[in-house]
């Protein structure tokens, strides 16, 4: 279905099998929140280590400095390669890092995108990174541009939706788009409260000639017939 280009953050990728898959790029706010959570975790871990090592002499401080170095530069890359493309902060916000073609990030890309924050951070507080994010449609900061990576939303698994049981009725003549609209409404109505269902169904009063829950039930019957639940 070729649709007119809308102003949205969905990027389509075509696989070798000839189907298209969609990725939803994550914007600066979600990413900044994830970054803050990660910063908090890093600080806590380093503080805990500092307290643990304080009992040792100066040598312990050397170990801590090495841990500080590794946390500063490698913490995100390690998680992105070994923990499904997400640092704990990104996981908490349902984000993940992938290559621009949708495949999981490898070491090369993860290292590039996590060394370059040194440039993204300039001149103050991710200034250049922000400018870069707002000047391309996938919200890529400089590190993402160089590594060819995207930060996308990882959706929770979608479960099979079932229509509520009941009678099926053949609808009057409808176009394909109208049929889809009715099925989509009925499938989605399981997560809406009855008042909202009725409110939406009343938009079609001209078509069903019914109001309130009676309209909803009529649309459900049509949907069951269209989806083939009557057989």
């Amino acid at each position, binding site marked *: 279905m070729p649709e007119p280009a809308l102003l949205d953050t969905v990027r389509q990728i075509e696989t070798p099998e*000839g189907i298209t898959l969609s990725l939803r790029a994550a914007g600066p706010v979600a990413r900044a929140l994830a970054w803050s959570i990660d910063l908090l975790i890093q600080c806590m871990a380093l503080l805990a280590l500092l307290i643990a090592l304080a009992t040792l002499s100066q040598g312990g401080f050397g*170990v801590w400095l090495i841990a500080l170095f590794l946390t500063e*530069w490698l913490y995100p890359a390690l998680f992105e390669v070994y923990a499904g493309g997400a640092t704990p902060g990104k996981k908490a916000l349902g984000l993940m890092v992938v290559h621009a073609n949708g495949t999981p990030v490898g070491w090369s*890309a993860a290292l590039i995108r996590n060394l370059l924050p040194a440039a993204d951070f300039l001149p103050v507080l991710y200034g250049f990174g922000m400018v870069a994010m707002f000047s391309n449609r996938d919200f890529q900061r400089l590190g993402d*541009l*160089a590594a060819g990576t995207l930060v996308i939303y990882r959706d929770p698994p979608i479960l099979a939706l079932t229509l509520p049981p009941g009678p099926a009725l053949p609808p009057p003549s409808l176009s394909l788009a109208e049929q889809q609209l009715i099925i989509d409404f009925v499938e989605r109505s399981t997560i809406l409260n009855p008042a909202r269902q009725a409110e939406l169904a009343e938009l079609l009063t001209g078509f069903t000639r019914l109001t309130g829950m009676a309209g909803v039930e009529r649309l459900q019957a049509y949907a069951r017939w269209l989806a083939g639940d009557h*057989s």
Partner: protein
Amino acid sequence: MKQRQFERRHSAEWQAFAARLERLERRSPLKNTPQPEPLPVLELPAAYRRLCQQLAIARSRCYSNALNARLSQLALRAYQQLYRGPQGRWQAMLQFLSTDFPQRVRANAGLFWLCAALFYLPLLGMGLAVYQAPELIYSLLAPERVTDLEAMYAPGQAAVDRAASSDLAMFGYYIRNNIGLGFRTFAGGILLGVGSAFMLLLNGLFIGAVSGYLTAKGLTETFYTFVAGHGAFELTGIVLAGVAGMKLGWAVVAPGRWSRSAALRQAASDGVRLILGMTALLTLAAFIEAFWSSNHAIPAEIKYTVGGIGWLLIILYLSRAGRDVA
């Protein structure tokens, strides 16, 4: 065919496929555990292709958005499992250091000499200037820092040996400071190369100023025996960080036949490999600096000899290693 018939026909297959994907996603790539799969792994691509076909059918028959979304998500997850890159291995790292890295340095010889000039010319110039007029050092360093510097390399100080634990502390300090500096030099390169050039220049000026000042003050013995051991690896590491950074900048300024973003991605994937080699060099330098250079019990002649051997090794390594390997 109505949507419900289609769903009934395939739903068992989709459920089994989702369960398989979940097992694959949960498998940790750190452990090389054998497949816990009841089905042989070769069936995954076939199952994935069947799913792609079913998704295409569902889309062309305009089945409901909920069904299409569910199948798309299954396909995306399978795609990510199937098309993931190979995981790194330690043998690959060894192979990289013995052949790939020096080859890459030689492939970027032009940038290497440019960065070497950006680093060593200010170093020499500033060194000579401060040697002639020691007060010039105050243009770069605060007076307290200069006093510290003099105290650090005062001959009397040499007799006081550092404790082993303090060596370890210094090792941590050098690792964080020097390698972090190398990373920043690389990252700064994406700003049209300006960041890398600036870092090279600044470091050259600093090192030159300190060397010139201490030489002028006659603290040569303590200073040069200290820097001789690790100098070869550290200075070369800094120049290589510059090379990696300038590659990024050059790709943005003059992408050649590629688009800017494609040229940048290519330069970054080349540059990060140079940075990997740089990290190895700077780690070695930090180790020598913390545990060998600081040891005042070793006679000066031995320290200078080891320093010279270091330079010889690094030159041979970067110019010869991996030559016969295609």
